[in-house]
Protein backbone atom coordinates (compact mmCIF):
# COMPACT_ATOMS: atom_id res chain seq x y z
CA UNK A 1 0.00 0.00 0.00
CA UNK A 2 2.65 2.45 1.08
CA UNK A 3 4.89 1.89 -1.91
CA UNK A 4 1.95 2.12 -4.29
CA UNK A 5 0.70 5.33 -2.69
CA UNK A 6 4.08 7.07 -2.86
CA UNK A 7 3.50 8.73 -6.16
CA UNK A 8 3.98 12.13 -7.62
CA UNK A 9 0.27 12.80 -8.03
CA UNK A 10 0.03 13.76 -4.36
CA UNK A 11 1.98 16.85 -5.35
CA UNK A 12 -0.95 17.99 -7.49
CA UNK A 13 -3.02 18.55 -4.35
CA UNK A 14 -0.43 20.69 -2.60
CA UNK A 15 0.87 22.44 -5.73
CA UNK A 16 -1.75 25.25 -6.00
CA UNK A 17 -1.09 26.43 -2.45
CA UNK A 18 2.66 25.96 -2.68
CA UNK A 19 2.97 27.89 -5.93
CA UNK A 20 1.14 30.89 -4.48
CA UNK A 21 3.00 30.49 -1.19
CA UNK A 22 6.40 30.59 -2.85
CA UNK A 23 5.46 33.49 -5.15
CA UNK A 24 3.73 35.72 -2.59
CA UNK A 25 5.59 34.84 0.62
CA UNK A 26 8.91 33.02 0.18
CA UNK A 27 10.14 35.02 -2.81
CA UNK A 28 9.27 38.37 -1.12
CA UNK A 29 10.98 37.17 2.07
CA UNK A 30 14.23 36.57 0.19
CA UNK A 31 13.80 39.67 -1.94
CA UNK A 32 13.40 41.68 1.29
CA UNK A 33 16.82 40.53 2.48
CA UNK A 34 18.28 41.42 -0.93
CA UNK A 35 16.63 44.86 -0.80
CA UNK A 36 18.00 45.53 2.67
CA UNK A 37 21.56 45.16 1.32
CA UNK A 38 20.95 47.59 -1.54
CA UNK A 39 20.18 51.21 -2.07
CA UNK A 40 16.97 51.08 -4.09
CA UNK A 41 14.96 53.90 -5.61
CA UNK A 42 11.37 53.98 -6.79
CA UNK A 43 12.21 52.20 -10.05
CA UNK A 44 13.85 49.26 -8.33
CA UNK A 45 17.38 49.87 -9.64
CA UNK A 46 19.57 48.73 -6.78
CA UNK A 47 23.20 49.32 -5.96
CA UNK A 48 24.81 46.90 -3.54
CA UNK A 49 25.75 48.74 -0.35
CA UNK A 50 26.33 45.81 2.00
CA UNK A 51 25.28 46.54 5.56
CA UNK A 52 25.18 50.32 5.04
CA UNK A 53 21.42 50.44 5.55
CA UNK A 54 21.74 48.63 8.86
CA UNK A 55 24.59 50.88 9.96
CA UNK A 56 22.52 53.95 9.06
CA UNK A 57 19.54 52.58 11.04
CA UNK A 58 21.62 52.12 14.17
CA UNK A 59 22.67 55.74 13.96
CA UNK A 60 19.17 57.01 13.13
CA UNK A 61 17.55 58.49 16.27
CA UNK A 62 14.08 58.32 14.65
CA UNK A 63 14.43 54.57 14.22
CA UNK A 64 15.88 54.20 17.71
CA UNK A 65 12.97 56.07 19.23
CA UNK A 66 10.47 54.03 17.25
CA UNK A 67 12.00 50.85 18.68
CA UNK A 68 11.89 52.26 22.21
CA UNK A 69 8.26 53.34 21.70
CA UNK A 70 7.36 49.89 20.42
CA UNK A 71 8.99 48.17 23.42
CA UNK A 72 7.36 50.62 25.85
CA UNK A 73 3.87 50.16 24.45
CA UNK A 74 4.35 46.37 24.41
CA UNK A 75 5.39 46.54 28.08
CA UNK A 76 2.32 48.62 28.90
CA UNK A 77 -0.09 46.33 27.07
CA UNK A 78 1.04 42.72 27.57
CA UNK A 79 1.17 42.40 31.41
CA UNK A 80 -2.12 44.27 31.93
CA UNK A 81 -3.84 42.33 29.17
CA UNK A 82 -2.59 38.98 30.48
CA UNK A 83 -3.62 39.59 34.11
CA UNK A 84 -7.02 41.05 33.19
CA UNK A 85 -7.78 38.27 30.74
CA UNK A 86 -6.81 35.58 33.25
CA UNK A 87 -8.90 37.20 36.01
CA UNK A 88 -11.89 37.39 33.67
CA UNK A 89 -11.46 33.80 32.55
CA UNK A 90 -11.34 32.62 36.18
CA UNK A 91 -14.46 34.62 37.04
CA UNK A 92 -16.40 33.61 33.93
CA UNK A 93 -15.45 29.93 33.77
CA UNK A 94 -18.91 28.74 34.80
CA UNK A 95 -21.94 27.42 32.99
CA UNK A 96 -24.43 30.10 34.01
CA UNK A 97 -26.33 32.42 31.70
CA UNK A 98 -24.85 35.50 33.38
CA UNK A 99 -21.34 34.26 32.68
CA UNK A 100 -22.20 33.71 29.01
CA UNK A 101 -23.53 37.26 28.69
CA UNK A 102 -20.41 38.72 30.34
CA UNK A 103 -18.17 36.64 28.05
CA UNK A 104 -20.05 38.06 25.08
CA UNK A 105 -19.60 41.64 26.29
CA UNK A 106 -15.88 41.23 26.96
CA UNK A 107 -15.28 39.59 23.59
CA UNK A 108 -17.42 41.97 21.50
CA UNK A 109 -14.73 44.61 20.90
CA UNK A 110 -12.39 41.97 19.42
CA UNK A 111 -14.44 41.56 16.26
CA UNK A 112 -14.01 45.23 15.29
CA UNK A 113 -11.39 46.43 12.83
CA UNK A 114 -8.58 48.74 13.89
CA UNK A 115 -10.13 51.61 11.92
CA UNK A 116 -13.41 51.38 13.82
CA UNK A 117 -11.61 51.03 17.16
CA UNK A 118 -9.46 54.11 16.56
CA UNK A 119 -12.43 56.07 15.25
CA UNK A 120 -14.32 55.29 18.47
CA UNK A 121 -11.34 56.06 20.72
CA UNK A 122 -10.51 59.28 18.95
CA UNK A 123 -13.85 60.58 20.15
CA UNK A 124 -13.37 59.17 23.62
CA UNK A 125 -9.84 60.40 24.24
CA UNK A 126 -9.99 63.78 22.46
CA UNK A 127 -10.12 66.36 25.28
CA UNK A 128 -12.53 68.75 23.54
CA UNK A 129 -15.04 66.40 21.94
CA UNK A 130 -14.51 63.09 23.74
CA UNK A 131 -16.51 61.03 26.19
CA UNK A 132 -13.65 61.00 28.72
CA UNK A 133 -13.32 64.78 28.38
CA UNK A 134 -17.04 65.21 29.06
CA UNK A 135 -16.83 62.98 32.14
CA UNK A 136 -13.69 64.76 33.40
CA UNK A 137 -15.35 68.16 32.97
CA UNK A 138 -18.49 66.86 34.67
CA UNK A 139 -16.30 66.05 37.67
CA UNK A 140 -14.75 69.49 37.51
CA UNK A 141 -11.32 68.33 36.31
CA UNK A 142 -9.22 69.52 33.44
CA UNK A 143 -9.44 66.99 30.54
CA UNK A 144 -6.16 65.20 29.80
CA UNK A 145 -4.68 65.85 26.34
CA UNK A 146 -4.31 62.13 25.60
CA UNK A 147 -3.70 62.50 21.88
CA UNK A 148 -1.35 65.49 21.92
CA UNK A 149 0.88 65.33 25.02
CA UNK A 150 4.17 63.46 24.42
CA UNK A 151 3.87 61.58 27.76
CA UNK A 152 0.26 60.55 27.20
CA UNK A 153 0.15 59.33 23.60
CA UNK A 154 1.76 55.93 24.26
CA UNK A 155 -0.57 55.25 27.23
CA UNK A 156 -3.47 56.29 24.97
CA UNK A 157 -2.40 53.71 22.38
CA UNK A 158 -2.03 51.12 25.16
CA UNK A 159 -5.50 51.82 26.60
CA UNK A 160 -7.06 51.56 23.15
CA UNK A 161 -5.22 48.33 22.43
CA UNK A 162 -6.15 46.73 25.77
CA UNK A 163 -9.83 47.56 25.23
CA UNK A 164 -9.64 46.16 21.71
CA UNK A 165 -7.69 42.95 22.40
CA UNK A 166 -9.01 41.68 25.74
CA UNK A 167 -11.40 39.11 24.24
CA UNK A 168 -8.97 36.74 22.55
CA UNK A 169 -6.64 36.03 25.52
CA UNK A 170 -9.72 35.67 27.76
CA UNK A 171 -11.10 32.99 25.43
CA UNK A 172 -7.72 31.24 25.25
CA UNK A 173 -7.51 31.15 29.06
CA UNK A 174 -11.09 29.86 29.28
CA UNK A 175 -10.22 27.06 26.87
CA UNK A 176 -7.10 26.29 28.92
CA UNK A 177 -9.05 26.21 32.19
CA UNK A 178 -11.52 23.74 30.69
CA UNK A 179 -8.69 21.27 30.17
CA UNK A 180 -7.81 20.98 33.86
CA UNK A 181 -8.99 17.57 35.14
CA UNK A 182 -11.56 17.82 37.92
CA UNK A 183 -9.77 15.32 40.16
CA UNK A 184 -6.84 17.73 40.58
CA UNK A 185 -9.20 20.13 42.34
CA UNK A 186 -10.72 17.29 44.35
CA UNK A 187 -7.27 16.30 45.52
CA UNK A 188 -6.55 19.91 46.49
CA UNK A 189 -9.85 20.10 48.38
CA UNK A 190 -8.99 16.90 50.28
CA UNK A 191 -5.73 18.54 51.33
CA UNK A 192 -7.79 21.47 52.65
CA UNK A 193 -5.97 23.81 50.28
CA UNK A 194 -7.31 27.37 50.31
CA UNK A 195 -8.39 29.28 47.21
CA UNK A 196 -5.03 30.98 46.75
CA UNK A 197 -3.05 27.83 47.31
CA UNK A 198 -5.24 25.98 44.81
CA UNK A 199 -4.74 28.78 42.29
CA UNK A 200 -0.94 28.84 42.64
CA UNK A 201 -0.44 25.09 43.00
CA UNK A 202 -3.09 23.65 40.66
CA UNK A 203 -4.61 26.20 38.28
CA UNK A 204 -1.55 28.21 37.27
CA UNK A 205 0.80 25.26 36.63
CA UNK A 206 -1.94 23.52 34.62
CA UNK A 207 -2.41 26.44 32.24
CA UNK A 208 1.31 27.21 31.92
CA UNK A 209 1.27 26.44 28.19
CA UNK A 210 -1.72 28.69 27.59
CA UNK A 211 -0.05 31.44 29.63
CA UNK A 212 3.11 31.24 27.51
CA UNK A 213 1.01 31.19 24.32
CA UNK A 214 -0.96 34.29 25.36
CA UNK A 215 2.11 36.28 26.41
CA UNK A 216 4.05 35.42 23.25
CA UNK A 217 1.11 35.96 20.84
CA UNK A 218 0.41 39.33 22.43
CA UNK A 219 4.07 40.34 22.47
CA UNK A 220 4.43 39.49 18.78
CA UNK A 221 1.20 41.36 17.98
CA UNK A 222 2.12 44.52 19.91
CA UNK A 223 5.66 44.61 18.44
CA UNK A 224 3.86 45.00 15.09
CA UNK A 225 1.51 47.75 16.27
CA UNK A 226 0.64 50.02 13.38
CA UNK A 227 -2.98 51.05 12.86
CA UNK A 228 -3.51 52.54 16.31
CA UNK A 229 -0.39 54.72 16.04
CA UNK A 230 -1.06 55.77 12.45
CA UNK A 231 -4.72 56.62 12.92
CA UNK A 232 -4.94 57.95 16.50
CA UNK A 233 -1.80 60.04 16.80
CA UNK A 234 -0.04 59.79 13.42
CA UNK A 235 3.04 58.88 15.47
CA UNK A 236 3.09 62.33 17.05
CA UNK A 237 3.71 64.65 18.69
CA UNK A 238 7.15 64.77 17.06
CA UNK A 239 7.58 61.00 17.00
CA UNK A 240 6.57 60.36 20.63
CA UNK A 241 4.22 57.57 19.55
CA UNK A 242 5.82 56.42 16.29
CA UNK A 243 6.05 52.61 16.33
CA UNK A 244 8.61 50.67 14.30
CA UNK A 245 6.07 49.49 11.73
CA UNK A 246 4.82 53.07 11.32
CA UNK A 247 8.46 54.16 10.79
CA UNK A 248 8.86 51.43 8.18
CA UNK A 249 5.61 52.47 6.50
CA UNK A 250 6.64 56.13 6.35
CA UNK A 251 10.11 55.39 5.01
CA UNK A 252 8.78 52.95 2.41
CA UNK A 253 5.60 54.57 1.17
CA UNK A 254 6.31 58.20 2.00
CA UNK A 255 10.01 58.53 1.16
CA UNK A 256 10.23 55.45 -1.09
CA UNK A 257 13.60 54.42 0.39
CA UNK A 258 12.93 50.75 -0.14
CA UNK A 259 16.37 49.41 0.86
CA UNK A 260 16.42 51.41 4.09
CA UNK A 261 12.84 50.41 4.97
CA UNK A 262 13.64 46.76 4.22
CA UNK A 263 16.56 46.82 6.63
CA UNK A 264 14.20 48.14 9.34
CA UNK A 265 11.73 45.37 8.46
CA UNK A 266 14.44 42.71 8.78
CA UNK A 267 15.52 43.97 12.21
CA UNK A 268 11.92 43.86 13.48
CA UNK A 269 11.48 40.43 11.88
CA UNK A 270 14.49 39.11 13.80
CA UNK A 271 13.13 40.48 17.07
CA UNK A 272 9.71 38.86 16.49
CA UNK A 273 11.36 35.62 15.39
CA UNK A 274 13.23 35.67 18.69
CA UNK A 275 9.92 35.91 20.55
CA UNK A 276 8.40 33.05 18.53
CA UNK A 277 11.44 30.82 19.07
CA UNK A 278 11.36 31.57 22.80
CA UNK A 279 7.77 30.32 22.87
CA UNK A 280 8.69 27.09 21.03
CA UNK A 281 11.63 26.59 23.35
CA UNK A 282 9.56 27.16 26.51
CA UNK A 283 6.66 24.92 25.46
CA UNK A 284 9.00 22.37 23.89
CA UNK A 285 10.78 21.99 27.22
CA UNK A 286 7.37 21.27 28.78
CA UNK A 287 6.70 18.52 26.30
CA UNK A 288 10.02 16.85 27.08
CA UNK A 289 9.38 16.91 30.81
CA UNK A 290 6.03 15.29 30.07
CA UNK A 291 3.67 18.02 31.24
Amino acid at each position, binding site marked *: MRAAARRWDG*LLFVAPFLLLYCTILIYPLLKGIWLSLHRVDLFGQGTLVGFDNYARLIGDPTFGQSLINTFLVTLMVVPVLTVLALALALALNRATRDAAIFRGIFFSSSVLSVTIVTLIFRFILAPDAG*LLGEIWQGLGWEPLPFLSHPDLTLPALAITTIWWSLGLPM*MLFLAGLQQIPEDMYEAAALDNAGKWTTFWRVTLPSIRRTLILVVMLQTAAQLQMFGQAQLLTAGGPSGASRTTVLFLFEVAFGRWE*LGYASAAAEILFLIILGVTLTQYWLTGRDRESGR
Partner: protein
Amino acid sequence: MAASIQRGRLPWWGWIGLVVGAAIMAAPLVWTLLLSLKNNAELVGNSGAALSGPYTLENYVAILGNDRTLRWLLNSVIVSLGTTVGVLVLCSLAGYGFARLDFPFRRTLFTLVLLGLAIPSQAVILPQHQLFATLGLHNSYPGLILPGLITSFGVFFMTTYMRAIPKELDEAAMLDGASRFTIFWKVILPLTVPAQSTLAVFTFLGSWNDYWWPLISATRSDMYTLTVGLASSQMNYAQTSGLGFLMAQAVFASIPIFVVYVIFQKQIVRAMAGTAVR
Protein backbone atom coordinates in the same frame (compact mmCIF):
# COMPACT_ATOMS: atom_id res chain seq x y z
CA MET B 1 -19.41 23.91 29.23
CA ALA B 2 -19.38 21.18 31.82
CA ALA B 3 -21.32 22.00 34.96
CA SER B 4 -18.58 20.38 37.03
CA ILE B 5 -16.28 23.25 36.08
CA GLN B 6 -18.17 25.64 38.37
CA ARG B 7 -16.15 25.98 41.48
CA GLY B 8 -17.54 27.98 44.34
CA ARG B 9 -19.52 31.17 44.03
CA LEU B 10 -18.06 34.40 42.79
CA PRO B 11 -17.60 36.73 45.80
CA TRP B 12 -19.50 40.06 45.82
CA TRP B 13 -16.40 42.07 44.93
CA GLY B 14 -15.93 39.79 41.96
CA TRP B 15 -19.38 40.70 40.70
CA ILE B 16 -18.73 44.42 41.20
CA GLY B 17 -15.48 44.09 39.26
CA LEU B 18 -17.26 42.28 36.43
CA VAL B 19 -20.06 44.84 36.21
CA VAL B 20 -17.64 47.78 36.23
CA GLY B 21 -15.43 46.05 33.66
CA ALA B 22 -18.38 45.25 31.43
CA ALA B 23 -19.54 48.87 31.67
CA ILE B 24 -16.07 50.08 30.60
CA MET B 25 -16.09 47.61 27.70
CA ALA B 26 -19.60 48.54 26.58
CA ALA B 27 -19.50 52.33 27.13
CA PRO B 28 -17.48 53.14 23.97
CA LEU B 29 -19.86 51.05 21.87
CA VAL B 30 -22.97 52.63 23.38
CA TRP B 31 -21.44 56.10 23.01
CA THR B 32 -20.74 55.41 19.32
CA LEU B 33 -24.28 54.19 18.78
CA LEU B 34 -25.75 57.28 20.47
CA LEU B 35 -23.53 59.65 18.46
CA SER B 36 -24.57 57.93 15.24
CA LEU B 37 -28.24 58.58 16.07
CA LYS B 38 -27.79 62.35 16.48
CA ASN B 39 -28.21 65.21 14.09
CA ASN B 40 -24.73 66.39 12.99
CA ALA B 41 -25.33 70.07 13.64
CA GLU B 42 -26.35 69.39 17.24
CA LEU B 43 -23.02 67.67 17.92
CA VAL B 44 -20.78 70.51 16.74
CA GLY B 45 -18.67 71.55 19.73
CA ASN B 46 -20.94 69.64 22.09
CA SER B 47 -20.72 65.88 21.78
CA GLY B 48 -22.42 65.63 25.19
CA ALA B 49 -25.68 66.29 23.36
CA ALA B 50 -25.59 62.59 22.45
CA LEU B 51 -26.73 61.71 25.95
CA SER B 52 -30.23 63.05 25.36
CA GLY B 53 -32.73 62.99 22.52
CA PRO B 54 -34.06 63.66 19.98
CA TYR B 55 -32.54 60.74 18.11
CA THR B 56 -32.82 60.25 14.38
CA LEU B 57 -31.88 57.73 11.71
CA GLU B 58 -30.91 60.43 9.20
CA ASN B 59 -27.20 59.48 9.24
CA TYR B 60 -28.03 55.91 8.26
CA VAL B 61 -30.36 57.15 5.52
CA ALA B 62 -27.48 59.34 4.32
CA ILE B 63 -25.17 56.29 4.18
CA LEU B 64 -27.63 54.36 2.06
CA GLY B 65 -27.71 57.32 -0.31
CA ASN B 66 -23.90 57.58 -0.31
CA ASP B 67 -22.41 55.77 -3.30
CA ARG B 68 -18.90 55.77 -1.86
CA THR B 69 -19.76 53.97 1.37
CA LEU B 70 -21.88 51.43 -0.55
CA ARG B 71 -19.01 50.86 -2.96
CA TRP B 72 -16.63 50.21 -0.03
CA LEU B 73 -19.17 47.78 1.40
CA LEU B 74 -19.35 45.95 -1.93
CA ASN B 75 -15.54 45.83 -2.13
CA SER B 76 -15.30 44.43 1.41
CA VAL B 77 -17.91 41.78 0.63
CA ILE B 78 -16.17 40.72 -2.61
CA VAL B 79 -12.70 40.64 -1.06
CA SER B 80 -13.76 38.82 2.13
CA LEU B 81 -15.88 36.23 0.36
CA GLY B 82 -13.26 35.73 -2.36
CA THR B 83 -10.55 35.25 0.25
CA THR B 84 -12.69 32.84 2.27
CA VAL B 85 -13.58 30.66 -0.72
CA GLY B 86 -9.98 30.69 -1.96
CA VAL B 87 -8.58 29.74 1.44
CA LEU B 88 -11.06 26.86 1.83
CA VAL B 89 -10.22 25.45 -1.60
CA LEU B 90 -6.43 25.79 -1.33
CA CYS B 91 -6.16 24.63 2.29
CA SER B 92 -8.48 21.64 1.78
CA LEU B 93 -6.51 20.45 -1.24
CA ALA B 94 -3.17 20.99 0.47
CA GLY B 95 -4.41 19.51 3.74
CA TYR B 96 -5.58 16.37 1.94
CA GLY B 97 -2.27 16.04 0.14
CA PHE B 98 -0.15 16.52 3.26
CA ALA B 99 -2.34 14.42 5.54
CA ARG B 100 -3.32 11.43 3.42
CA LEU B 101 -0.99 11.05 0.44
CA ASP B 102 2.66 10.20 0.26
CA PHE B 103 4.84 11.91 -2.28
CA PRO B 104 8.49 12.89 -2.59
CA PHE B 105 9.62 15.80 -0.36
CA ARG B 106 6.32 15.73 1.57
CA ARG B 107 7.96 16.40 4.94
CA THR B 108 10.27 19.07 3.56
CA LEU B 109 7.42 20.89 1.86
CA PHE B 110 5.24 20.72 4.98
CA THR B 111 8.08 22.20 7.05
CA LEU B 112 8.40 24.96 4.47
CA VAL B 113 4.69 25.74 4.91
CA LEU B 114 5.00 25.78 8.71
CA LEU B 115 7.84 28.29 8.36
CA GLY B 116 5.18 30.74 7.20
CA LEU B 117 3.69 30.79 10.71
CA ALA B 118 6.74 32.73 11.87
CA ILE B 119 6.83 35.33 9.07
CA PRO B 120 5.04 38.56 10.02
CA SER B 121 3.38 40.46 7.17
CA GLN B 122 5.54 43.56 7.69
CA ALA B 123 8.66 41.53 6.83
CA VAL B 124 7.46 40.91 3.27
CA ILE B 125 5.29 43.95 2.56
CA LEU B 126 7.77 45.91 0.43
CA PRO B 127 8.69 43.14 -2.04
CA GLN B 128 5.01 42.12 -2.14
CA HIS B 129 4.12 45.68 -3.08
CA GLN B 130 6.78 45.66 -5.82
CA LEU B 131 5.63 42.27 -7.09
CA PHE B 132 2.00 43.33 -7.35
CA ALA B 133 3.03 46.57 -9.03
CA THR B 134 5.01 44.59 -11.64
CA LEU B 135 2.01 42.34 -12.23
CA GLY B 136 -0.29 45.36 -12.45
CA LEU B 137 -2.51 43.99 -9.71
CA HIS B 138 -2.83 47.02 -7.42
CA ASN B 139 -6.32 48.48 -7.24
CA SER B 140 -7.88 45.22 -8.39
CA TYR B 141 -9.85 42.49 -6.64
CA PRO B 142 -7.27 39.74 -7.35
CA GLY B 143 -4.63 42.09 -5.95
CA LEU B 144 -6.61 42.54 -2.75
CA ILE B 145 -7.49 38.84 -2.41
CA LEU B 146 -4.28 36.97 -3.31
CA PRO B 147 -2.09 37.81 -0.27
CA GLY B 148 -4.94 36.72 2.01
CA LEU B 149 -4.84 33.23 0.51
CA ILE B 150 -1.39 32.54 1.93
CA THR B 151 -2.29 31.06 5.28
CA SER B 152 0.09 28.54 6.76
CA PHE B 153 -2.26 28.24 9.68
CA GLY B 154 -5.10 27.16 7.36
CA VAL B 155 -3.00 24.38 5.79
CA PHE B 156 -1.74 23.26 9.20
CA PHE B 157 -5.31 23.28 10.56
CA MET B 158 -6.80 21.25 7.67
CA THR B 159 -3.87 18.82 7.66
CA THR B 160 -4.29 18.09 11.37
CA TYR B 161 -8.03 17.62 10.94
CA MET B 162 -7.75 15.33 7.91
CA ARG B 163 -5.03 13.24 9.51
CA ALA B 164 -7.52 12.22 12.23
CA ILE B 165 -9.92 10.64 9.72
CA PRO B 166 -9.48 6.81 9.59
CA LYS B 167 -7.31 5.57 6.69
CA GLU B 168 -9.72 2.66 6.02
CA LEU B 169 -12.13 5.06 4.31
CA ASP B 170 -9.65 5.83 1.52
CA GLU B 171 -8.67 2.20 1.15
CA ALA B 172 -12.28 1.02 0.83
CA ALA B 173 -13.01 3.67 -1.79
CA MET B 174 -9.78 2.78 -3.60
CA LEU B 175 -10.90 -0.86 -3.83
CA ASP B 176 -14.12 0.39 -5.45
CA GLY B 177 -11.95 1.95 -8.13
CA ALA B 178 -12.45 5.60 -7.10
CA SER B 179 -9.83 8.09 -8.26
CA ARG B 180 -7.81 10.19 -5.81
CA PHE B 181 -9.86 13.25 -6.57
CA THR B 182 -13.16 11.38 -6.16
CA ILE B 183 -12.01 10.13 -2.76
CA PHE B 184 -11.07 13.67 -1.76
CA TRP B 185 -14.30 15.18 -3.06
CA LYS B 186 -16.88 12.52 -2.15
CA VAL B 187 -15.41 10.79 0.91
CA ILE B 188 -13.07 13.07 2.84
CA LEU B 189 -14.36 16.59 2.18
CA PRO B 190 -17.90 15.97 3.54
CA LEU B 191 -16.32 14.81 6.80
CA THR B 192 -14.44 18.08 7.25
CA VAL B 193 -17.44 20.44 7.31
CA PRO B 194 -16.89 21.46 10.97
CA ALA B 195 -13.25 22.37 10.26
CA GLN B 196 -14.26 24.15 7.05
CA SER B 197 -16.77 26.33 8.87
CA THR B 198 -14.28 27.26 11.60
CA LEU B 199 -11.63 28.18 9.06
CA ALA B 200 -14.22 30.09 7.02
CA VAL B 201 -15.34 32.23 9.95
CA PHE B 202 -11.78 33.10 10.92
CA THR B 203 -10.74 33.89 7.38
CA PHE B 204 -13.79 36.05 6.83
CA LEU B 205 -13.29 38.01 10.06
CA GLY B 206 -9.59 38.49 9.37
CA SER B 207 -10.15 39.57 5.79
CA TRP B 208 -13.02 41.92 6.62
CA ASN B 209 -10.93 43.64 9.31
CA ASP B 210 -7.63 43.71 7.41
CA TYR B 211 -6.24 47.21 7.16
CA TRP B 212 -2.54 46.76 6.35
CA TRP B 213 -2.63 45.27 2.83
CA PRO B 214 -5.64 47.16 1.37
CA LEU B 215 -4.14 50.40 2.73
CA ILE B 216 -1.02 49.78 0.65
CA SER B 217 -2.57 48.11 -2.40
CA ALA B 218 -5.79 50.07 -2.90
CA THR B 219 -4.81 53.64 -3.61
CA ARG B 220 -7.89 54.63 -5.63
CA SER B 221 -10.84 55.48 -3.39
CA ASP B 222 -13.26 53.39 -5.49
CA MET B 223 -11.16 50.30 -4.64
CA TYR B 224 -11.03 50.97 -0.88
CA THR B 225 -12.47 48.36 1.44
CA LEU B 226 -14.56 49.60 4.38
CA THR B 227 -11.55 49.58 6.74
CA VAL B 228 -9.46 51.82 4.48
CA GLY B 229 -12.47 53.95 3.57
CA LEU B 230 -13.23 54.58 7.23
CA ALA B 231 -9.59 55.42 7.89
CA SER B 232 -9.63 58.01 5.13
CA SER B 233 -12.91 59.48 6.42
CA GLN B 234 -11.53 59.88 9.92
CA MET B 235 -8.33 61.49 8.70
CA ASN B 236 -10.32 63.96 6.59
CA TYR B 237 -12.75 64.40 9.46
CA ALA B 238 -12.86 68.18 9.08
CA GLN B 239 -14.16 67.85 5.53
CA THR B 240 -16.74 65.16 6.19
CA SER B 241 -20.35 65.61 6.98
CA GLY B 242 -19.88 65.45 10.74
CA LEU B 243 -19.45 63.34 13.81
CA GLY B 244 -22.85 61.65 13.68
CA PHE B 245 -22.34 60.54 10.08
CA LEU B 246 -18.81 59.28 10.83
CA MET B 247 -20.06 57.18 13.74
CA ALA B 248 -22.97 55.86 11.68
CA GLN B 249 -20.37 54.69 9.15
CA ALA B 250 -18.51 52.86 11.92
CA VAL B 251 -21.68 51.16 13.13
CA PHE B 252 -22.68 50.35 9.56
CA ALA B 253 -19.27 48.81 8.83
CA SER B 254 -19.39 46.61 11.93
CA ILE B 255 -22.93 45.26 11.46
CA PRO B 256 -21.89 42.43 9.06
CA ILE B 257 -19.10 41.35 11.37
CA PHE B 258 -21.36 41.28 14.44
CA VAL B 259 -23.90 39.20 12.50
CA VAL B 260 -21.17 36.70 11.54
CA TYR B 261 -19.93 36.67 15.14
CA VAL B 262 -23.36 35.99 16.64
CA ILE B 263 -24.24 33.26 14.12
CA PHE B 264 -20.87 31.48 14.31
CA GLN B 265 -20.03 31.95 18.00
CA LYS B 266 -19.71 28.16 18.44
CA GLN B 267 -17.09 27.81 15.69
CA ILE B 268 -15.10 30.72 17.11
CA VAL B 269 -15.05 29.27 20.62
CA ARG B 270 -14.14 25.82 19.29
CA ALA B 271 -11.25 27.23 17.27
CA MET B 272 -9.94 29.07 20.34
CA ALA B 273 -10.08 25.85 22.33
CA GLY B 274 -8.03 24.20 19.59
CA THR B 275 -5.38 26.94 19.66
CA ALA B 276 -5.07 26.96 23.44
CA VAL B 277 -4.39 23.26 23.83
CA ARG B 278 -2.23 22.98 20.75
